């Protein structure tokens, strides 16, 4: 096979033109339009008013926005502080040399993330049923005096969301950690062992520094995923839940944009979320860079 060098100079541009066209039409243009839209109020394309910063002012004055932000960050915090240590713990267990059935357990722990979010939400809504749900049935069986009716999805909305997301994502994040652990050199671990380091010291001073870049990546991924949380509470709670206890920023955006048809306000929410995400990503990069 020989490479021809007789192509005109514009040939590469012809080949990337379809992608660039699609990218410009479906990404760049809507992105620019959404910035413009954030400063407008619209009702269909015919009714458009320039409102300046009013959408952003209204956003900051809306208690629902702060509720959504609080819920989203609570969930993100739980993801980072509960989900990731659990994932790392599972990965460490599965990385033990000589563990039998490792592939089987890996599949078992990973399999929940193969299931669609909507299905998981439906399943947990049945499990958290007030009277006949699996959770309450088990608690009634094993906890004397547990009431015949207990509404998890009213009284413990965030806990229910966190439990459902743990089930779904712990195994998924475990795979990242497992891959990272498998690339940790055995020499360092053995040397530490000879020097008398216990399991915690080996993890703290040898293993963790080696998997830190992956851990940083997983933390960032979890935070971004958490800030984009939508389907799970939307289906599990059939909306934002009682007193908006399950309202997230993306659900707030959806409600304003598509249920109230206020696309300008929704664009303002979207850009506020984007700025938050960019800020978090930069902060995380700087933090990791400084530590390295």
């Amino acid at each position, binding site marked *: 096979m020989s490479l021809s060098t007789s*192509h005109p100079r514009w040939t590469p541009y012809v080949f990337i033109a379809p992608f660039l066209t699609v990218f410009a039409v479906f990404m760049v243009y809507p992105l620019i339009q959404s910035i413009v839209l954030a400063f407008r109020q619209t009702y*269909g*394309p015919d*009714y458009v008013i320039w409102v300046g910063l009013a959408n952003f002012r209204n956003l900051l004055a809306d208690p629902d926005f702060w509720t959504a932000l609080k819920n989203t960050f609570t969930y993100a915090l739980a993801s980072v502080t509960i989900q990731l240590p659990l994932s790392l713990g599972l990965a460490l267990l599965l990385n033990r040399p000589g563990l039998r059935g490792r592939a089987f357990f890996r599949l078992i722990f990973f399999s929940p993330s193969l299931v669609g979010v909507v299905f998981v939400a439906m399943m947990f809504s049945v499990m958290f*049923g007030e009277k*006949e749900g699996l959770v309450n049935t088990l608690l009634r069986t094993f906890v004397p005096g547990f009431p*015949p009716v207990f509404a998890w999805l009213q009284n413990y909305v965030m806990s229910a969301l966190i439990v459902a997301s743990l089930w779904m994502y712990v195994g998924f994040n475990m795979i990242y950690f497992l891959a990272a652990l498998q690339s940790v050199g055995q020499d360092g671990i053995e040397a530490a062992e000879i020097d008398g380091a216990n399991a915690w010291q080996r993890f703290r001073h040898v293993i963790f520094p080696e998997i830190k870049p992956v851990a940083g990546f997983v933390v960032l991924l979890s935070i971004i995923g958490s800030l984009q949380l939508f389907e799970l509470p939307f289906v599990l709670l059939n909306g934002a839940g009682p007193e908006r206890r399950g309202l997230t920023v993306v659900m707030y955006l959806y409600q304003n944009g598509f249920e*109230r048809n206020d696309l300008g306000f929704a664009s303002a929410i979207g850009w506020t979320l984007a700025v938050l995400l960019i800020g978090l990503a930069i902060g995380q990069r700087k933090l990791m860079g400084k530590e390295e």
Partner: protein
Amino acid sequence: MQLSLGSWTICGLAVASSLGMAFWKAPAPPGKPFWLFSQSHSLTYMPMIAEWNKTHPPEHQFNGTVIAGPALERRLASGLLSGTPVPDAVEIEISMAAKVYAGPLDAVGLVDLTDRMNHEGITAQINAPSLAPWTTHGRIFGLPHDVHPVLLAYRADLVEAAGIRVEDIETWDDFARIMAPLMADKDRDGYPDRYLLGVWETNPASIEILILQAGGEFFDQNFKSVINSETNARVISGIVSWIAGPKRIGANAPNFDAEGNHLFLSGGVVCCLMPDWLAGVWMQDLPGLKGKVKLMPLPAWEKGGRRTSVAGGTMLSIPERSTDVENSWDFAKRLYLSRDLAETLFKNSSIITPIKTHWNNPVYDKPNPYFCGQANGRLFINEAPNVPIRTSSPFRPAAIQAVTDAIIRLKQRAEAQSIYTPSALLPFAREELKRAEAEVRSQMDRNFFQTAENQAKVSP
């Protein structure tokens, strides 16, 4: 430039698929599109649409298409606002109507039927409160499909076995007092064996029913928020007194839900707020209750008060861009004003027509074995003229949600402070409704298009 065989193949496929997309048109079904969101409505209309099509030329025929509610809402909104295809006729459910009315009046996108209906004497034929949800700024944009009065369904087997006479119940206070023996704790587990009513703070539909029944509302005729009213405060205090505390009578038994259905089937909940459409749903979904359920007027909030309410609704509208508005109007009248359709609608789904002249149809007087031989049609019709008038504010869903949240907060306060009587809850109810109204007003203030002085400024 030399291209390999693979490159030529890719280019060929790209050109062929582009040409295909540009020139191939998916075959459209014959007839003008008539969009529906309900399969049961479609089944009811099919024979009449077939009959219409037999007697009309192809260019005037209709094709009923069922589209899932949310999809219909999006497609219709897109069509009305930005020129994508719209149907020639469409059924719109009440929650969608609020969105259609969210912009300036001249942007509604549906044919204003007010003058036609008045001129042809149709307005006078229709049960007056049934027009209200489809009216905005005094203009009617759809023919009403239904009345949806609400009665109280109760487990007659349990109530009668306990020797309770429902004829003695006139008010909600009577209801709680007279039905109380049904809440005994015979299994001695520390909880009542049964609860009296399927009402809960997370069920906005039942909260709306009870507020409307009492004469409360969320907006006045000028679309001003009236959430923070004394009537509403009294109602939400009453509701919280039913669902909070050790002597609560209410339970969470949502419809269309396995646990809710189980509670009604097992007798865990004795009574249910029942619109006419729900009677049809129960007959289909809960056959186990056949011969065990009876209907009665709702207990009133005070002696001599209203014994019914209203829940849900549908209208038939014609988009302004319909290809033949006159033909669509004739079709709409043929369908919705038909005596045959009213009868089929009742037989299929227990829904009564809003056309008053059809109420003398004997089908409504037929004893129904499901309701222990009661003529459920006549019971609903008796209350139809009394259903409360609703307004069509686009902020209605937000208002209902805000009041629901107010009830949740009020219940939390009731339980935190062990206050369970309506009179003790009333001052807190006023505070919570004030907060709810402020929330809704802030949303309304955000909408430039809804302020009357701005409507003129924004015409395209």
